[in-house]
């Protein structure tokens, strides 16, 4: 239902940095644009990225927050069943904030 995850890597910096924690909903969620999604990607494994597009079939396109991220093109269309959680809150070293 809920899960706390620890961020590894800096491709979501400055929104999320390595060592930050995120509070995620793992069930009964609806993917929304601009939210961070936790995805079990068949090639890249368990990753977290921002949702930038959702098509009519519910497939998603994801994006990092800076140029060090793997690209949207490399990740390809992400199937809804690959999404294992949506981020509701982040707990950063300096402050706690709601991710929008």
């Amino acid at each position, binding site marked *: 239902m809920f899960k706390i995850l620890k961020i590894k890597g800096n491709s979501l910096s400055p929104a999320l940095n390595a060592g930050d924690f995120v509070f995620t909903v793992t069930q009964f969620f609806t993917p929304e644009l601009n939210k961070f999604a936790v995805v079990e990607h068949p090639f890249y494994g*368990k990753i977290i990225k921002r949702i930038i597009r959702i098509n009519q079939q519910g497939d998603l396109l994801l994006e990092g927050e800076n140029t060090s*991220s793997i690209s949207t*093109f490399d990740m390809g269309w992400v199937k809804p069943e690959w999404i294992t959680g949506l981020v509701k809150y982040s707990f950063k070293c300096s402050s*706690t904030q709601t991710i929008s």
Partner: protein
Amino acid sequence: MIHKIIKFLDNRVSFEEVSAHCDIPCKIYDPSPAQLAALTVIRMLDLINEFEQSKNLSIEEISQLSRLVAQKEEHAQKVKEEVTVIWGDYFKQPQFEQFTNTHKLVHSIMLQASRCKQSTDKSNGIALLKQVNQFAIDFWTTKNIDTFVATSPYPPAEPVVYPWLNPHSS
């Protein structure tokens, strides 16, 4: 404060990690080193072929010729290595689906680079550059970056594919 509490808990129970996944360092791919190496092969072939008129080479000239041949072969090998890395590390299923001819093109580049090693015929170098240019077009297209062709502003002054990149405004 909350972060500290969660971090304290993390030290006890180890929360699962999720990767923001930076692709560093292997995200840095660019076909330009392969293109420069192909240009170098052509340049070396030009310089090597200048010796064709000479009947009796001095020791100095023989040394220079040896160096040119060595550089030609080294850069032909470099073309192979640069193209292989992009083909093997950057290209994945979406790119292969976009350019279904990629395997054939890369194999053809390997063979052509070998021909450049084996001969002093300039046309082999020109053919190599042409194939590497095609590879560059495909590569940049997979990144949704347009390309243009311009003559290299240095010898051997052959056509080279360059990416259209947006300059910074400042």
